[in-house]
């Protein structure tokens, strides 16, 4: 099938480009590892506070850290596309009969693979700190992470195609990602938050992903928050993919 073939071709091309610079996958790990080493210990003291979820500091914090990795690992991928737009690479590809959806999916799936590699590394690095995760839980977490990666990579590409300028892209990203992060309960659980903050966070889809991830890490795979978080991410990812693929077919540069 043409879409699958085209997606594979675009994916393989971008995977090969990434493989020439594997350092980036490791560099992507630096920030979460710093959080793990320099921030998570603070939570040990807070974990006994009323309102802090059960399960121990690391089983509460690492899920959040993973979602943060998903957000920041994927949201900035648009920068590489802006560079390609400027060079004329995207224009050249748009003149070929390649599927526009494949132009998006091939790239975004490369980003998802990168993200899953860093996520697995981060989970492995967290084990010595006392993180516990079962194989089925790991599978669910990686599936959730893949959806988050697809969602934010697609959005990032769509924005890159609309704005076509790093000068506009960078401040917009920071403006959007920071509140998403703060209102998701990544750093500290929202169960500690006052009621009004929790109400605002209820509008943040990422908060549901964090809830789902925490439930999985606390061995509550059957918890309704798991299905809810995965479903919300799946629907948004699908919408983002469609939006970004349309942006590819209309790109003006």
């Amino acid at each position, binding site marked *: 099938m043409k879409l699958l073939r*085209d997606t594979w*071709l675009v994916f393989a*091309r971008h995977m090969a480009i990434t493989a*020439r610079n594997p350092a980036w996958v490791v560099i992507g790990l630096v920030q979460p590892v710093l959080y793990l080493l320099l921030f998570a210990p603070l939570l040990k003291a807070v974990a006994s506070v009323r309102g802090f979820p059960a399960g121990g500091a690391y089983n509460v914090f690492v899920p959040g850290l993973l979602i943060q990795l998903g957000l920041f690992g994927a949201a900035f991928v648009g920068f590489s596309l802006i560079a390609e737009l400027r060079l004329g690479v995207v224009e*050249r590809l748009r*003149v070929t*009969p390649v599927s526009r959806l494949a132009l998006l999916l091939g790239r975004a799936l490369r980003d998802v693979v990168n993200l899953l590699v860093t996520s697995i590394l981060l989970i492995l690095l967290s084990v010595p700190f006392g993180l516990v995760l079962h194989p089925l839980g790991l599978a669910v977490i990686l599936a959730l992470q893949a959806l988050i990666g697809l969602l934010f990579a697609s959005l990032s590409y769509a924005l890159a195609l609309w704005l076509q300028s790093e000068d506009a892209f960078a401040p917009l990203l920071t403006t959007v990602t920071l509140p998403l992060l703060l209102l998701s309960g990544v750093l500290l659980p929202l169960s500690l938050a006052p009621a009004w903050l929790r109400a605002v966070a209820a509008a943040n889809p990422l908060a549901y992903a964090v809830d789902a991830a925490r439930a999985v890490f606390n061995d509550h795979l059957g918890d309704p928050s798991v299905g809810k978080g995965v479903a919300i991410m799946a629907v948004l990812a699908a919408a983002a993919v469609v939006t970004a693929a349309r942006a590819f077919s209309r790109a003006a540069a």
Partner: protein
Amino acid sequence: MPSPAIEASGLRRIFRSRRGPVEAVAGVDLRVEAGEVFGFLGPNGAGKTTTLRMLATLLPPTGGAAAVAGCDLRRDARRVRERVGYVGQRTGSDPSVTGRAELVFQGRLYGLGRDAAMRRAAELLAALELEACADRPSASYSGGQRRRLDVALGLVHRPGLLFLDEPTTGLDPQGRARLWDEVRRLRDEGTTIFLTTHYLDEADALCDRVAIIDHGRIVAEDTPDGLKRQVAGDVVRLGVAGDPGAALGLLSSQPFVREAQAEPGGVRLAVDRGEEALPAILRLLDGAALELRSIALSRPSLDDVFLRQTGRSLREEGAA
């Protein structure tokens, strides 16, 4: 008679901007025959690239219709893409990827299998003299090499119609000459070529027909020679001894002279065909016993055509 490679009527494109709509292309009618090299000439911002991008399916037209390579541009963009090659103004290759890998990838996007794409890449690398740098990332290529890679990318699927958007801008003279040869070779193989340029000598040297576009409209269209003849024909300058009045009186009444005026020390004539006018002028002056000191024939350049059609010199535009 084969169907034309491009047939466009009333092609328009309006861009929205902060200061209101801008009509970049304001109704272009075009007919490009199969097998010809067609040049699209105009100053920056005249609508050359916008027209080209519409014809290459990159930009949907706001109005008008076009058939490109026998397919309807609006309804059948997919089949147009299968039949045309496009080399944009900017490079289309990723600097971190080798020329060979780019060509193989491009071939596969056009549906070639792995082996066929490898073979086609090798053919093109040889044809465009890129074998020496084929397996290096294109970041290390010279300007001419990168441009030839761009052209090779546009040729992977052997398109019958190739769009070249300012193919030689920024190349050194050698690189330009090399690319001109390539365009001629393609034409000899039967490829229709539609190119934009703001080099008049390039249009003159390469194109079978030229259209001049200004402010989104085609203001002139003909063969390069035909366009030049439209201007005012050739110019003959005569230096004569003594009063030029006698020579002026004699020559201005001749049927082949379109315009005659005296200038210090001589006469300036505009004639239709300079090479045929010269012997006649010599005979006339000899017969009237007028002493001729010098004679010079100059042909109008496409720049003169451009100046007349647009009121601006393209050379100044190009340098700006």
